[in-house]
């Protein structure tokens, strides 16, 4: 499993890297600021990210929020501070875990493994939601385009559908795209 770590203090970062490698993880990127973490998450596409909270430029929680906007991945916040406001901010930002410093080697594997597993489950369910939403949107667009064709061209329902399908086949584009383009042009 490829891990991104973000920690501004060099010694702690080295320590964390060693700890992770001993536990069998591959540290694929090291960030020293929140901004770097956002950048490295994008370029390295790690399987999981461990983010310190107090870092220059951008704190770990804000970095988590930005990372999740473009690169969905499980994030575990690592911090010496566990005040309620920080914890709530982390939970709101989308963190799957929160490790309080100092932590033991034994705390790492479960935190990372549970975060990864539950993240995968969430991502899978969301993908299902998306495919359903997409399917419904496609259906609506095609129904509407079909109606427009029937009215304007005096076609039967079946012929209107066939025309849309042919356009899709000829152009090599999904019927939804054809339908949307048709709606856009004719309304």
């Amino acid at each position, binding site marked *: 499993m490829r891990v991104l770590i973000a920690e501004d203090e060099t010694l702690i970062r080295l320590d964390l890297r060693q700890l992770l490698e001993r536990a069998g993880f591959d540290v694929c990127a090291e960030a020293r600021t929140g901004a770097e973490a956002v950048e490295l998450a994008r370029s390295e596409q790690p399987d999981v990210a461990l983010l310190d909270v107090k870092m220059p430029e951008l704190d770990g929680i804000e970095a988590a929020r930005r990372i999740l906007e473009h690169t969905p991945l499980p994030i575990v916040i690592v911090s010496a501070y566990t005040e309620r406001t920080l914890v709530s901010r982390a*939970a709101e930002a989308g963190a799957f875990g929160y490790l309080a410093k100092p932590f033991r080697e034994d705390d790492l594997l479960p935190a990372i493994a549970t975060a990864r597993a539950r993240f995968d489950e969430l991502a899978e369910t969301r993908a299902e939601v998306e495919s359903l939403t997409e399917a419904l949107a496609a259906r609506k667009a095609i129904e509407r385009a079909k109606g427009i064709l029937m009215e304007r061209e005096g076609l039967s329902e079946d012929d209107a559908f066939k025309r849309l399908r042919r356009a899709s086949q000829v152009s090599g584009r999904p019927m939804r795209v054809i339908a949307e383009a048709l709606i856009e042009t004719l309304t």
Partner: protein
Amino acid sequence: MLRVLIAEDETIIRMDLRQLLEKNGMTVCAEARNGLEAVALARECEPDVAVMDLRMPELDGIEAARRMYAERPLPIVMLTAFADRSNVENAIEAGVFSYLVKPFRESDVVPAIHAAVARHRELLDARRTVGRQPLGAVVVSVPSSNGGVWPVSLERRDDGSLDVKGIDAL
């Protein structure tokens, strides 16, 4: 206010947990001393989150978690003295959201609960959205030239998940 079920066979740790959770603004709605009690009490008090020991008499925490989750999905935080991979994997497979190794500190438990609750809520929302889609309406009854249904058909597989056949499948 979060309502928490605690399952822990050692009285001292159970009391400690209760104090710690109450101090952090949570309500302990049930205390179980073994896995069977945990399942029964979860049914009765419908907690927002469960904090469970792994090794308990009657029924261990992992099997209890599995049964609780099957009856009513909720975020579960597992507490245990054992951090070995197979226990972690079993817990994950049972649906556990967070896994903490004893001895634990207040600063381990409280953040774990909040993160688990927030992420589990997202998961439930996503699942509800999937369940809410009007399945019947998605299948179009207008016959296409090849006699199929159009443009998408949705089917429940035997395991309850959805099989989505898109336009490209026709």
